[in-house]
Protein backbone atom coordinates (compact mmCIF):
# COMPACT_ATOMS: atom_id res chain seq x y z
CA UNK A 1 0.00 0.00 0.00
CA UNK A 2 1.40 3.38 -0.95
CA UNK A 3 2.30 5.89 1.69
CA UNK A 4 1.19 9.50 1.89
CA UNK A 5 4.87 10.35 1.76
CA UNK A 6 4.95 9.02 -1.80
CA UNK A 7 2.47 11.75 -2.69
CA UNK A 8 3.57 14.54 -0.42
CA UNK A 9 7.29 14.25 -1.02
CA UNK A 10 9.61 16.92 0.30
CA UNK A 11 10.10 18.47 -3.16
CA UNK A 12 6.35 18.76 -3.62
CA UNK A 13 5.85 20.26 -0.18
CA UNK A 14 8.63 22.73 -0.93
CA UNK A 15 7.09 23.78 -4.24
CA UNK A 16 3.72 24.15 -2.52
CA UNK A 17 5.12 26.33 0.26
CA UNK A 18 7.32 28.39 -2.05
CA UNK A 19 5.89 28.07 -5.53
CA UNK A 20 8.31 29.17 -8.24
CA UNK A 21 7.19 31.73 -10.84
CA UNK A 22 4.12 32.57 -8.76
CA UNK A 23 3.25 35.92 -10.34
CA UNK A 24 1.62 37.43 -13.40
CA UNK A 25 3.22 38.49 -16.67
CA UNK A 26 1.91 41.77 -18.06
CA UNK A 27 0.89 41.46 -21.73
CA UNK A 28 1.99 37.87 -22.00
CA UNK A 29 1.73 36.49 -25.54
CA UNK A 30 -0.31 33.49 -24.31
CA UNK A 31 -2.72 33.12 -21.44
CA UNK A 32 -5.26 30.60 -20.21
CA UNK A 33 -7.22 29.87 -17.05
CA UNK A 34 -7.51 26.38 -15.67
CA UNK A 35 -10.20 25.02 -13.40
CA UNK A 36 -10.65 21.66 -11.73
CA UNK A 37 -14.38 21.63 -10.95
CA UNK A 38 -14.13 18.52 -8.79
CA UNK A 39 -12.24 20.22 -6.00
CA UNK A 40 -12.01 23.90 -6.82
CA UNK A 41 -8.39 24.19 -8.00
CA UNK A 42 -8.06 27.33 -10.10
CA UNK A 43 -5.06 28.74 -11.87
CA UNK A 44 -4.24 31.49 -14.28
CA UNK A 45 -1.26 30.81 -16.53
CA UNK A 46 0.83 33.40 -18.38
CA UNK A 47 3.27 32.34 -21.07
CA UNK A 48 5.64 34.59 -23.01
CA UNK A 49 6.74 33.05 -26.30
CA UNK A 50 9.40 34.73 -28.43
CA UNK A 51 10.66 33.20 -31.69
CA UNK A 52 9.21 29.84 -30.74
CA UNK A 53 10.85 29.74 -27.32
CA UNK A 54 9.14 30.04 -23.93
CA UNK A 55 11.09 32.97 -22.55
CA UNK A 56 8.94 33.43 -19.47
CA UNK A 57 6.13 31.56 -17.74
CA UNK A 58 4.25 32.29 -14.53
CA UNK A 59 1.06 31.38 -12.75
CA UNK A 60 -1.33 32.53 -10.06
CA UNK A 61 -4.19 30.75 -8.40
CA UNK A 62 -5.59 28.88 -5.46
CA UNK A 63 -5.51 25.16 -5.27
CA UNK A 64 -4.39 22.11 -3.41
CA UNK A 65 -0.76 21.35 -2.67
CA UNK A 66 -0.51 18.95 -5.61
CA UNK A 67 -1.89 21.38 -8.17
CA UNK A 68 0.26 24.24 -6.93
CA UNK A 69 3.44 22.16 -6.73
CA UNK A 70 2.78 20.69 -10.17
CA UNK A 71 2.31 24.15 -11.66
CA UNK A 72 5.48 25.37 -10.00
CA UNK A 73 7.52 22.38 -11.20
CA UNK A 74 6.06 22.79 -14.66
CA UNK A 75 7.07 26.43 -15.00
CA UNK A 76 10.61 25.53 -13.93
CA UNK A 77 10.89 22.70 -16.43
CA UNK A 78 9.35 24.55 -19.38
CA UNK A 79 11.14 27.90 -19.22
CA UNK A 80 13.68 28.29 -22.01
CA UNK A 81 12.36 25.39 -24.08
CA UNK A 82 11.06 25.44 -27.63
CA UNK A 83 7.30 25.10 -28.16
CA UNK A 84 7.64 21.68 -29.80
CA UNK A 85 9.63 20.41 -26.85
CA UNK A 86 7.00 21.81 -24.48
CA UNK A 87 4.16 20.05 -26.29
CA UNK A 88 6.13 16.80 -26.28
CA UNK A 89 6.80 17.22 -22.57
CA UNK A 90 3.03 17.66 -21.97
CA UNK A 91 2.40 14.29 -23.64
CA UNK A 92 5.20 12.60 -21.67
CA UNK A 93 4.03 14.08 -18.37
CA UNK A 94 0.42 13.11 -19.02
CA UNK A 95 1.52 9.57 -19.85
CA UNK A 96 3.57 9.39 -16.67
CA UNK A 97 0.76 10.37 -14.31
CA UNK A 98 -1.82 8.14 -15.99
CA UNK A 99 0.31 4.99 -16.23
CA UNK A 100 -1.15 2.40 -13.84
CA UNK A 101 0.88 1.94 -10.66
CA UNK A 102 3.41 -0.87 -10.85
CA UNK A 103 4.26 -0.20 -14.50
CA UNK A 104 7.49 1.57 -15.37
CA UNK A 105 7.43 5.23 -16.23
CA UNK A 106 9.84 7.47 -18.06
CA UNK A 107 12.30 9.41 -15.94
CA UNK A 108 11.33 13.04 -16.32
CA UNK A 109 13.90 14.47 -13.92
CA UNK A 110 12.36 16.76 -11.32
CA UNK A 111 8.87 16.11 -12.73
CA UNK A 112 9.16 12.45 -11.77
CA UNK A 113 8.49 13.46 -8.20
CA UNK A 114 4.81 13.59 -9.19
CA UNK A 115 4.76 9.96 -10.33
CA UNK A 116 3.44 9.08 -6.88
CA UNK A 117 0.09 10.64 -7.75
CA UNK A 118 -0.74 7.49 -9.74
CA UNK A 119 -1.45 5.72 -6.45
CA UNK A 120 -4.00 8.41 -5.62
CA UNK A 121 -6.17 8.42 -8.74
CA UNK A 122 -8.51 11.06 -7.36
CA UNK A 123 -5.56 13.49 -7.35
CA UNK A 124 -4.25 12.88 -10.91
CA UNK A 125 -6.34 15.77 -12.20
CA UNK A 126 -4.73 18.04 -9.62
CA UNK A 127 -1.30 17.19 -11.01
CA UNK A 128 -2.30 17.58 -14.63
CA UNK A 129 -4.33 20.78 -14.35
CA UNK A 130 -1.35 23.08 -14.93
CA UNK A 131 -0.29 21.10 -17.99
CA UNK A 132 -3.79 21.13 -19.49
CA UNK A 133 -3.83 24.87 -18.91
CA UNK A 134 -0.45 25.24 -20.60
CA UNK A 135 -1.69 23.32 -23.62
CA UNK A 136 -4.81 25.50 -23.73
CA UNK A 137 -2.67 28.63 -23.60
CA UNK A 138 -0.50 27.44 -26.46
CA UNK A 139 -3.59 26.35 -28.44
CA UNK A 140 -5.06 29.80 -27.76
CA UNK A 141 -8.11 28.32 -26.01
CA UNK A 142 -9.08 30.62 -23.11
CA UNK A 143 -10.13 28.06 -20.50
CA UNK A 144 -8.88 24.59 -19.68
CA UNK A 145 -10.70 22.07 -17.59
CA UNK A 146 -9.67 18.66 -16.48
CA UNK A 147 -13.08 17.26 -17.53
Amino acid at each position, binding site marked *: *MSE*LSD*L*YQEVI*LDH*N*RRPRNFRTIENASHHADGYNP*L*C*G*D*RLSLFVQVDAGIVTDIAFEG*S*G*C*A*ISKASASLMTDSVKGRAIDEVRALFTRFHRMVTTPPGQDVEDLGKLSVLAGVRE*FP*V*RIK*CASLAWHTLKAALDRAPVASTE
Partner: protein
Amino acid sequence: MTPGAAAPRLFEVGAVRGDFPILRRQAHGHPLVYLDNAATTQKPQVVIDAISRYYTDINANVHRGVHELSGLATDAFEAGREKVARFLNARSPREIVFTRNATESINLVAHAFGRLRVRAEDEVVISAMEHHSNIVPWQMLCERTGARLRVAPIDDRGELMVDALFALLNERTRLVAVTHMSNALGTVNPIEEIVRRAHEQGVAVLVDGAQAAYHLRVDVQALDCDFYAATGHKMYGPTGIGVLYGREALLDGMDPFLGGGDMISSVTFERSTWNELPHKFEAGTPDIAGVVGLGAAIDYLTAIGLDEIAAHEQALLAYGTEALQQVDGVRLIGTARRKASILSFVMDGVHPHDIGTIVDREGVAIRTGHHCAQPVMDRFGVPATARASIAMYNTREDIDALVDALGRVRQMLG
Protein backbone atom coordinates in the same frame (compact mmCIF):
# COMPACT_ATOMS: atom_id res chain seq x y z
CA MET B 1 -47.69 7.92 25.95
CA THR B 2 -50.31 5.87 27.74
CA PRO B 3 -49.57 4.49 31.20
CA GLY B 4 -48.16 0.99 31.00
CA ALA B 5 -46.82 1.47 27.47
CA ALA B 6 -43.23 0.32 26.89
CA ALA B 7 -40.60 2.96 27.61
CA PRO B 8 -38.90 4.26 24.44
CA ARG B 9 -35.72 2.36 23.62
CA LEU B 10 -32.81 4.18 25.19
CA PHE B 11 -30.43 5.34 22.48
CA GLU B 12 -27.29 3.26 22.79
CA VAL B 13 -24.84 4.05 20.04
CA GLY B 14 -22.84 0.85 20.48
CA ALA B 15 -25.95 -1.20 19.74
CA VAL B 16 -26.80 1.04 16.81
CA ARG B 17 -23.30 0.64 15.35
CA GLY B 18 -23.73 -3.11 15.57
CA ASP B 19 -26.70 -2.80 13.22
CA PHE B 20 -24.51 -1.37 10.42
CA PRO B 21 -22.22 -4.06 8.98
CA ILE B 22 -20.02 -1.70 6.97
CA LEU B 23 -18.82 0.04 10.13
CA ARG B 24 -16.78 -3.06 10.95
CA ARG B 25 -14.50 -2.55 7.97
CA GLN B 26 -11.15 -0.83 7.81
CA ALA B 27 -9.95 1.94 5.55
CA HIS B 28 -6.21 2.04 4.76
CA GLY B 29 -5.53 -0.26 7.68
CA HIS B 30 -7.41 1.89 10.21
CA PRO B 31 -10.94 1.42 11.59
CA LEU B 32 -13.33 3.23 9.28
CA VAL B 33 -14.47 6.55 10.68
CA TYR B 34 -17.34 7.43 8.37
CA LEU B 35 -18.13 11.11 8.55
CA ASP B 36 -19.49 11.68 5.06
CA ASN B 37 -23.16 11.10 5.87
CA ALA B 38 -24.34 14.22 4.11
CA ALA B 39 -23.18 12.57 0.90
CA THR B 40 -24.83 9.29 1.73
CA THR B 41 -25.60 7.25 4.83
CA GLN B 42 -24.69 3.65 5.57
CA LYS B 43 -27.41 1.01 5.73
CA PRO B 44 -28.52 -1.15 8.65
CA GLN B 45 -28.65 -4.92 8.07
CA VAL B 46 -32.46 -4.85 8.20
CA VAL B 47 -32.57 -2.61 5.15
CA ILE B 48 -30.06 -4.75 3.25
CA ASP B 49 -32.05 -7.86 4.21
CA ALA B 50 -35.38 -6.35 3.19
CA ILE B 51 -34.08 -5.58 -0.30
CA SER B 52 -32.49 -8.99 -0.60
CA ARG B 53 -35.66 -10.72 0.65
CA TYR B 54 -37.76 -8.82 -1.86
CA TYR B 55 -35.72 -10.24 -4.71
CA THR B 56 -35.53 -13.70 -3.18
CA ASP B 57 -39.21 -14.05 -2.27
CA ILE B 58 -41.66 -11.74 -4.01
CA ASN B 59 -40.08 -9.93 -6.96
CA ALA B 60 -42.51 -9.11 -9.74
CA ASN B 61 -43.67 -6.03 -11.57
CA VAL B 62 -46.25 -3.96 -9.76
CA HIS B 63 -49.80 -2.82 -10.49
CA ARG B 64 -50.31 -4.71 -13.70
CA GLY B 65 -50.18 -8.42 -12.98
CA VAL B 66 -52.84 -10.92 -11.95
CA HIS B 67 -50.53 -13.58 -10.52
CA GLU B 68 -49.65 -14.05 -6.86
CA LEU B 69 -46.15 -12.58 -6.99
CA SER B 70 -47.33 -9.40 -8.64
CA GLY B 71 -49.95 -9.03 -5.93
CA LEU B 72 -47.35 -9.46 -3.21
CA ALA B 73 -44.97 -7.02 -4.88
CA THR B 74 -47.72 -4.45 -5.34
CA ASP B 75 -48.77 -4.78 -1.71
CA ALA B 76 -45.17 -4.34 -0.56
CA PHE B 77 -44.73 -1.34 -2.83
CA GLU B 78 -47.92 0.43 -1.74
CA ALA B 79 -47.22 -0.45 1.89
CA GLY B 80 -43.92 1.37 1.44
CA ARG B 81 -45.79 4.39 0.10
CA GLU B 82 -48.08 4.35 3.14
CA LYS B 83 -45.05 4.22 5.44
CA VAL B 84 -43.57 7.27 3.75
CA ALA B 85 -46.91 9.08 3.98
CA ARG B 86 -47.08 8.41 7.73
CA PHE B 87 -43.39 9.27 8.21
CA LEU B 88 -43.88 12.69 6.64
CA ASN B 89 -47.42 13.03 8.02
CA ALA B 90 -48.97 13.54 4.61
CA ARG B 91 -52.76 13.52 4.53
CA SER B 92 -52.85 10.47 2.29
CA PRO B 93 -50.60 8.21 0.21
CA ARG B 94 -51.97 10.00 -2.86
CA GLU B 95 -49.69 12.87 -1.89
CA ILE B 96 -46.53 10.74 -2.05
CA VAL B 97 -44.82 10.39 -5.44
CA PHE B 98 -41.77 8.17 -5.85
CA THR B 99 -38.90 9.49 -7.94
CA ARG B 100 -35.25 8.59 -8.34
CA ASN B 101 -33.93 11.14 -5.85
CA ALA B 102 -34.62 14.59 -4.38
CA THR B 103 -33.12 16.21 -7.48
CA GLU B 104 -35.69 14.49 -9.68
CA SER B 105 -38.45 15.48 -7.25
CA ILE B 106 -37.49 19.12 -7.60
CA ASN B 107 -37.23 18.84 -11.38
CA LEU B 108 -40.72 17.32 -11.43
CA VAL B 109 -42.13 20.36 -9.66
CA ALA B 110 -40.13 22.78 -11.82
CA HIS B 111 -41.61 21.18 -14.92
CA ALA B 112 -45.14 20.36 -13.87
CA PHE B 113 -45.89 23.20 -11.46
CA GLY B 114 -43.89 25.51 -13.67
CA ARG B 115 -46.10 24.70 -16.65
CA LEU B 116 -49.20 25.25 -14.55
CA ARG B 117 -48.32 28.51 -12.86
CA VAL B 118 -45.15 30.22 -14.09
CA ARG B 119 -45.20 32.64 -17.02
CA ALA B 120 -42.94 35.34 -18.46
CA GLU B 121 -42.16 38.13 -15.96
CA ASP B 122 -43.19 35.89 -13.03
CA GLU B 123 -40.69 35.30 -10.24
CA VAL B 124 -39.25 32.32 -8.38
CA VAL B 125 -37.43 32.92 -5.10
CA ILE B 126 -34.63 30.71 -3.79
CA SER B 127 -32.01 31.27 -1.12
CA ALA B 128 -28.26 31.82 -1.36
CA MET B 129 -27.54 28.60 0.53
CA GLU B 130 -29.16 26.18 -1.89
CA HIS B 131 -27.65 23.00 -3.32
CA HIS B 132 -27.31 23.06 -7.09
CA SER B 133 -30.32 20.74 -7.31
CA ASN B 134 -32.49 23.49 -5.86
CA ILE B 135 -30.99 26.16 -8.12
CA VAL B 136 -30.53 24.71 -11.59
CA PRO B 137 -34.09 23.40 -12.18
CA TRP B 138 -35.39 26.90 -11.40
CA GLN B 139 -32.81 28.53 -13.67
CA MET B 140 -33.92 26.19 -16.41
CA LEU B 141 -37.58 27.01 -15.70
CA CYS B 142 -36.90 30.74 -15.85
CA GLU B 143 -34.95 30.28 -19.07
CA ARG B 144 -37.87 28.34 -20.60
CA THR B 145 -40.59 30.76 -19.53
CA GLY B 146 -38.93 34.16 -19.30
CA ALA B 147 -39.51 34.27 -15.55
CA ARG B 148 -37.00 35.78 -13.13
CA LEU B 149 -34.98 34.06 -10.42
CA ARG B 150 -34.58 36.04 -7.18
CA VAL B 151 -32.13 35.04 -4.45
CA ALA B 152 -32.59 35.72 -0.73
CA PRO B 153 -29.24 36.42 0.96
CA ILE B 154 -27.55 34.67 3.87
CA ASP B 155 -25.49 36.29 6.62
CA ASP B 156 -21.92 35.56 7.73
CA ARG B 157 -23.13 32.86 10.12
CA GLY B 158 -24.85 31.12 7.24
CA GLU B 159 -28.34 32.02 8.41
CA LEU B 160 -31.04 32.89 5.92
CA MET B 161 -31.98 36.56 6.14
CA VAL B 162 -35.69 35.91 6.31
CA ASP B 163 -36.77 39.54 6.25
CA ALA B 164 -34.84 39.99 3.02
CA LEU B 165 -36.62 36.92 1.64
CA PHE B 166 -40.02 38.32 2.59
CA ALA B 167 -39.09 41.64 0.99
CA LEU B 168 -38.57 39.79 -2.29
CA LEU B 169 -42.16 38.49 -2.38
CA ASN B 170 -44.49 40.43 -4.64
CA GLU B 171 -47.54 39.88 -6.81
CA ARG B 172 -45.38 38.25 -9.50
CA THR B 173 -43.89 35.64 -7.17
CA ARG B 174 -45.17 32.15 -7.90
CA LEU B 175 -42.94 29.94 -5.79
CA VAL B 176 -40.38 29.96 -3.02
CA ALA B 177 -37.94 27.04 -3.12
CA VAL B 178 -35.82 26.73 -0.01
CA THR B 179 -33.79 24.08 1.78
CA HIS B 180 -34.91 22.68 5.12
CA MET B 181 -31.29 22.07 6.07
CA SER B 182 -28.19 23.18 4.16
CA ASN B 183 -25.80 20.41 3.11
CA ALA B 184 -22.88 22.83 3.00
CA LEU B 185 -23.51 24.79 6.20
CA GLY B 186 -25.83 22.67 8.32
CA THR B 187 -28.21 25.60 8.78
CA VAL B 188 -31.80 24.63 9.59
CA ASN B 189 -34.29 27.11 8.17
CA PRO B 190 -37.54 28.36 9.81
CA ILE B 191 -39.81 26.67 7.31
CA GLU B 192 -43.11 27.24 9.14
CA GLU B 193 -42.50 30.98 9.21
CA ILE B 194 -41.43 31.09 5.57
CA VAL B 195 -44.49 29.10 4.48
CA ARG B 196 -46.85 31.24 6.53
CA ARG B 197 -45.56 34.48 5.03
CA ALA B 198 -45.46 33.04 1.50
CA HIS B 199 -49.03 31.76 1.76
CA GLU B 200 -50.21 35.18 2.96
CA GLN B 201 -49.14 36.41 -0.46
CA GLY B 202 -50.53 33.44 -2.35
CA VAL B 203 -47.08 32.02 -3.03
CA ALA B 204 -46.45 28.26 -3.02
CA VAL B 205 -43.44 26.78 -1.23
CA LEU B 206 -41.22 23.87 -2.14
CA VAL B 207 -38.91 22.58 0.58
CA ASP B 208 -35.72 20.68 -0.28
CA GLY B 209 -35.53 18.13 2.52
CA ALA B 210 -32.75 15.96 1.09
CA GLN B 211 -30.57 16.52 4.17
CA ALA B 212 -33.25 17.22 6.74
CA ALA B 213 -35.39 14.11 6.53
CA TYR B 214 -33.08 12.00 8.65
CA HIS B 215 -31.97 14.56 11.23
CA LEU B 216 -35.21 16.35 11.97
CA ARG B 217 -38.77 15.22 12.38
CA VAL B 218 -40.56 16.24 9.21
CA ASP B 219 -44.30 16.92 9.41
CA VAL B 220 -45.49 18.33 6.10
CA GLN B 221 -48.87 19.32 7.55
CA ALA B 222 -47.26 21.21 10.43
CA LEU B 223 -44.85 22.86 7.99
CA ASP B 224 -47.83 23.42 5.67
CA CYS B 225 -45.48 23.44 2.68
CA ASP B 226 -46.84 22.69 -0.78
CA PHE B 227 -44.02 20.38 -1.88
CA TYR B 228 -41.34 18.51 0.04
CA ALA B 229 -38.46 16.67 -1.64
CA ALA B 230 -36.63 13.86 0.15
CA THR B 231 -34.29 11.06 -0.79
CA GLY B 232 -33.92 7.51 0.50
CA HIS B 233 -30.16 7.10 0.44
CA LYS B 234 -29.60 9.95 2.90
CA MET B 235 -31.92 8.35 5.46
CA TYR B 236 -30.34 4.93 5.76
CA GLY B 237 -32.24 3.65 2.73
CA PRO B 238 -30.96 2.53 -0.67
CA THR B 239 -29.83 4.76 -3.51
CA GLY B 240 -32.16 5.30 -6.44
CA ILE B 241 -35.36 6.11 -4.55
CA GLY B 242 -36.58 9.64 -3.92
CA VAL B 243 -39.80 11.09 -2.62
CA LEU B 244 -41.92 14.06 -3.54
CA TYR B 245 -44.69 15.10 -1.19
CA GLY B 246 -47.19 17.36 -2.94
CA ARG B 247 -50.40 18.96 -1.70
CA GLU B 248 -53.15 16.93 -3.38
CA ALA B 249 -55.01 19.94 -4.78
CA LEU B 250 -51.82 21.11 -6.49
CA LEU B 251 -50.77 17.71 -7.80
CA ASP B 252 -54.30 17.28 -9.20
CA GLY B 253 -53.94 20.39 -11.33
CA MET B 254 -50.43 19.60 -12.56
CA ASP B 255 -49.76 17.79 -15.82
CA PRO B 256 -47.47 14.77 -15.71
CA PHE B 257 -43.70 15.17 -15.83
CA LEU B 258 -42.68 11.90 -17.47
CA GLY B 259 -44.99 10.02 -19.80
CA GLY B 260 -45.26 6.32 -20.40
CA GLY B 261 -46.63 3.16 -18.90
CA ASP B 262 -48.51 3.11 -15.61
CA MET B 263 -49.15 6.86 -15.45
CA ILE B 264 -51.96 6.54 -17.98
CA SER B 265 -55.55 5.50 -17.70
CA SER B 266 -56.14 4.80 -21.39
CA VAL B 267 -54.04 5.19 -24.53
CA THR B 268 -55.01 5.58 -28.15
CA PHE B 269 -53.03 7.25 -30.87
CA GLU B 270 -55.47 10.11 -30.78
CA ARG B 271 -55.08 10.88 -27.10
CA SER B 272 -54.19 9.39 -23.73
CA THR B 273 -55.76 10.07 -20.36
CA TRP B 274 -53.90 10.18 -17.10
CA ASN B 275 -54.00 7.82 -14.17
CA GLU B 276 -55.12 9.07 -10.78
CA LEU B 277 -52.77 10.34 -8.06
CA PRO B 278 -50.05 9.52 -7.33
CA HIS B 279 -49.57 7.18 -10.28
CA LYS B 280 -49.99 10.07 -12.72
CA PHE B 281 -46.45 11.07 -11.79
CA GLU B 282 -44.85 7.63 -11.79
CA ALA B 283 -44.10 6.52 -15.33
CA GLY B 284 -42.61 3.12 -16.04
CA THR B 285 -41.50 0.43 -13.67
CA PRO B 286 -40.52 2.02 -10.35
CA ASP B 287 -37.64 1.11 -8.06
CA ILE B 288 -39.76 -1.44 -6.21
CA ALA B 289 -36.86 -2.85 -4.19
CA GLY B 290 -35.89 0.72 -3.37
CA VAL B 291 -39.32 1.42 -1.92
CA VAL B 292 -39.13 -1.78 0.13
CA GLY B 293 -35.69 -0.76 1.40
CA LEU B 294 -36.88 2.76 2.20
CA GLY B 295 -39.83 1.33 4.10
CA ALA B 296 -37.47 -0.83 6.14
CA ALA B 297 -35.30 2.23 6.86
CA ILE B 298 -38.34 4.16 8.06
CA ASP B 299 -39.33 1.28 10.33
CA TYR B 300 -35.81 1.16 11.72
CA LEU B 301 -35.66 4.91 12.37
CA THR B 302 -39.08 4.95 13.95
CA ALA B 303 -38.23 2.05 16.26
CA ILE B 304 -35.15 3.84 17.54
CA GLY B 305 -36.91 7.19 17.75
CA LEU B 306 -36.26 10.30 15.72
CA ASP B 307 -36.06 12.48 18.84
CA GLU B 308 -33.48 10.17 20.42
CA ILE B 309 -31.42 10.22 17.24
CA ALA B 310 -31.64 14.01 17.01
CA ALA B 311 -30.54 14.40 20.64
CA HIS B 312 -27.53 12.13 20.09
CA GLU B 313 -26.53 13.99 16.93
CA GLN B 314 -26.96 17.43 18.51
CA ALA B 315 -24.72 16.45 21.41
CA LEU B 316 -22.09 15.19 18.96
CA LEU B 317 -22.40 18.33 16.86
CA ALA B 318 -21.72 20.44 19.96
CA TYR B 319 -18.76 18.22 20.89
CA GLY B 320 -17.39 18.35 17.34
CA THR B 321 -17.87 22.11 17.03
CA GLU B 322 -15.94 22.69 20.25
CA ALA B 323 -13.20 20.22 19.28
CA LEU B 324 -12.65 21.69 15.83
CA GLN B 325 -12.58 25.23 17.12
CA GLN B 326 -9.65 24.18 19.35
CA VAL B 327 -7.59 23.03 16.39
CA ASP B 328 -4.99 25.59 15.40
CA GLY B 329 -5.86 27.38 12.16
CA VAL B 330 -9.29 25.78 11.71
CA ARG B 331 -12.23 28.03 10.90
CA LEU B 332 -15.79 26.72 10.83
CA ILE B 333 -17.92 27.75 7.87
CA GLY B 334 -21.57 27.81 8.85
CA THR B 335 -22.21 28.77 12.47
CA ALA B 336 -25.97 29.32 12.42
CA ARG B 337 -27.74 29.23 15.77
CA ARG B 338 -29.92 26.40 14.50
CA LYS B 339 -27.84 23.68 12.86
CA ALA B 340 -27.73 19.94 12.45
CA SER B 341 -25.07 17.37 11.66
CA ILE B 342 -22.70 19.37 9.48
CA LEU B 343 -19.19 20.55 10.37
CA SER B 344 -17.82 22.45 7.39
CA PHE B 345 -14.39 23.99 7.87
CA VAL B 346 -11.25 25.40 6.31
CA MET B 347 -7.71 25.22 7.60
CA ASP B 348 -5.12 28.01 7.29
CA GLY B 349 -2.67 27.40 4.50
CA VAL B 350 -4.05 23.96 3.61
CA HIS B 351 -6.42 23.23 0.76
CA PRO B 352 -9.42 21.07 1.69
CA HIS B 353 -8.44 18.55 -0.96
CA ASP B 354 -5.16 17.90 0.84
CA ILE B 355 -6.99 17.67 4.19
CA GLY B 356 -9.28 15.03 2.71
CA THR B 357 -6.49 12.90 1.25
CA ILE B 358 -4.42 12.94 4.44
CA VAL B 359 -7.26 12.18 6.87
CA ASP B 360 -8.45 9.46 4.49
CA ARG B 361 -5.13 7.69 5.09
CA GLU B 362 -6.00 7.65 8.78
CA GLY B 363 -9.32 5.94 7.97
CA VAL B 364 -11.40 9.11 8.28
CA ALA B 365 -13.90 9.72 5.47
CA ILE B 366 -14.95 13.33 4.99
CA ARG B 367 -15.92 15.27 1.91
CA THR B 368 -13.98 18.11 0.36
CA GLY B 369 -14.94 20.48 -2.41
CA HIS B 370 -17.83 22.78 -3.14
CA HIS B 371 -20.49 20.27 -2.05
CA CYS B 372 -22.68 21.14 -5.04
CA ALA B 373 -23.06 24.59 -3.53
CA GLN B 374 -20.65 26.78 -5.44
CA PRO B 375 -22.60 29.97 -4.59
CA VAL B 376 -22.13 29.17 -0.89
CA MET B 377 -18.38 28.80 -1.38
CA ASP B 378 -18.31 32.13 -3.25
CA ARG B 379 -20.32 33.79 -0.46
CA PHE B 380 -17.76 32.77 2.13
CA GLY B 381 -14.80 33.50 -0.14
CA VAL B 382 -13.40 29.98 -0.09
CA PRO B 383 -12.66 27.68 -3.04
CA ALA B 384 -13.90 24.68 -1.11
CA THR B 385 -14.38 23.36 2.41
CA ALA B 386 -13.73 20.12 4.23
CA ARG B 387 -16.98 18.74 5.55
CA ALA B 388 -17.60 16.19 8.29
CA SER B 389 -21.25 15.17 8.71
CA ILE B 390 -22.73 13.27 11.62
CA ALA B 391 -25.27 10.42 11.57
CA MET B 392 -26.78 8.29 14.28
CA TYR B 393 -23.92 5.80 14.43
CA ASN B 394 -21.14 8.34 14.95
CA THR B 395 -19.39 8.71 18.30
CA ARG B 396 -17.11 11.05 20.20
CA GLU B 397 -14.28 8.69 19.25
CA ASP B 398 -15.05 9.44 15.60
CA ILE B 399 -14.69 13.18 16.23
CA ASP B 400 -11.47 12.56 18.18
CA ALA B 401 -10.11 10.53 15.27
CA LEU B 402 -10.86 13.42 12.92
CA VAL B 403 -9.09 15.89 15.20
CA ASP B 404 -6.06 13.57 15.47
CA ALA B 405 -5.98 13.22 11.70
CA LEU B 406 -6.02 17.00 11.35
CA GLY B 407 -2.90 16.96 13.51
CA ARG B 408 -1.31 14.73 10.86
CA VAL B 409 -2.31 17.28 8.22
CA ARG B 410 -0.44 20.00 10.11
CA GLN B 411 2.59 17.73 10.49
CA MET B 412 2.65 16.92 6.84
CA LEU B 413 1.94 20.27 5.27
CA GLY B 414 3.22 22.68 7.89
